[in-house]
């Protein structure tokens, strides 16, 4: 039987650790992807992901269900990412080790995909990463939450603690920067 997030939370609060583990398994991938795209470093993204679940576990009894569990989790993860960015005091730069990446990428390619396609895809990915790294943190976060996590404008506004109109402006400005940056790399 598949439990909903909220049911699993209730069971976890009641002391059922296995239910919390199910929540971890269900949400670790999105949270890790979010952290990776915001801070751009695999190792640190893993740490943020782990810390997110530890904090969630500790604070679970305080979760009252006013928001969705996923939104609550995203909020914890984003706060941790923000702390990380401030601590580092530098623009996040996505790291892609050349030697490892291409082999892994090629190994993961579709059987019908030619080497040229792999190169093309690889170059495009790098261009997107570079362009995303140019965005201010608020715009990057808004775009990540919208594009990769499918959150609504309202959900993003709630997470960012800003008006809905601000979210739209951030998205517009972010897309405009990406349009310019990706246009340069073509």
């Amino acid at each position, binding site marked *: 039987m598949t439990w909903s997030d909220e049911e699993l939370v209730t069971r976890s609060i009641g002391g059922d650790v296995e239910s919390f583990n199910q929540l971890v398994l269900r949400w*670790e991938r999105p949270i890790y992807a979010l952290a990776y795209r915001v801070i751009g470093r695999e190792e640190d993204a893993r740490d943020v992901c782990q810390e997110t679940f530890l904090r969630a576990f500790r604070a679970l009894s305080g979760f009252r269900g006013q928001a969705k569990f996923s939104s609550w989790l995203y909020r914890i993860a984003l706060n941790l990412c923000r702390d990380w960015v401030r601590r580092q005091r530098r623009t996040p730069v996505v790291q892609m080790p050349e030697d490892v990446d291409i082999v892994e990428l*090629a190994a993961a390619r579709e059987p019908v995909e030619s080497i040229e396609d792999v190169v093309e895809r690889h170059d495009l990915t790098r261009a997107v990463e570079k362009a995303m790294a140019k965005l201010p943190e608020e715009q990057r976060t808004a775009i990540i939450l919208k594009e*990769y996590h499918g959150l609504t404008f309202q959900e993003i506004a709630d997470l960012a603690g800003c008006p809905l109109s601000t979210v739209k402006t951030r998205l517009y400005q972010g897309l405009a920067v990406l349009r310019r940056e990706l246009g340069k790399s073509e």
Partner: protein
Amino acid sequence: MAEQHCIYPDRESVLVAYLYGDDIATVDRVTFDTHIATCERCRTELADFRDVRSNLAQWAAPEAARAHKSTVVTPARWWAAVPVWAQVAAAMLVLGVSASIANLDVHYDRANGLSVRTGWSKPAAPSIAAVAPVADTNATPWRADLAALQKQLREEMRVKSATVVASAAAPVTMSDADVRRVRLMLDESEQKQRSEFAAKLVELQKDVYVQQQYDIARVYKALGLMSTNTSAEMASQRKAISLAFPPK
């Protein structure tokens, strides 16, 4: 080229809402549909943003599971449910009992500073020992029991260690069947290692081949780019020459 002017109200917000199909009423959508049919600036921007979105879709985060440090929590220890004050009280009790069993003697004076010693390590003092037993036995009758218990434990430990030494010294005998089984296991392990090594070698060859192909593709791409640039450069030079020296 100068960008066309557009006075659509709240243009940027509407464009983003239209692009994502989020937070936009049907009537606003239809109105904007009509607008972009006539406004080139909005139409172009919308098309470009759609391209950006399709490019963004190519950016995949690395596999989380591959490098996942286990976040799954283990069940809490039973004492986690016990209040902190009770844990502290229990710790104090254990400490007190241990100190009394060890006959702990904490002493401080200016000359010697702080000294801590257990009753069992006290040096023998015949003059005191001659007098003290009666008083001690009366004061703490359990000490005699403890001394007896300690003696018994030491005896048991001595017996136990003697048994361990004896069993360690005894020669290990293996039956033929055991030897055969061990040999079989060793052979299997060796075979497994060989196959793993071969698989790794094949994988390495494959990686090297892929890397080669990748390098070749990049070189071709760079060469193509260079050739395009050179042609463009030559064309512009030809044009400049023909402008400077027009044919008569």
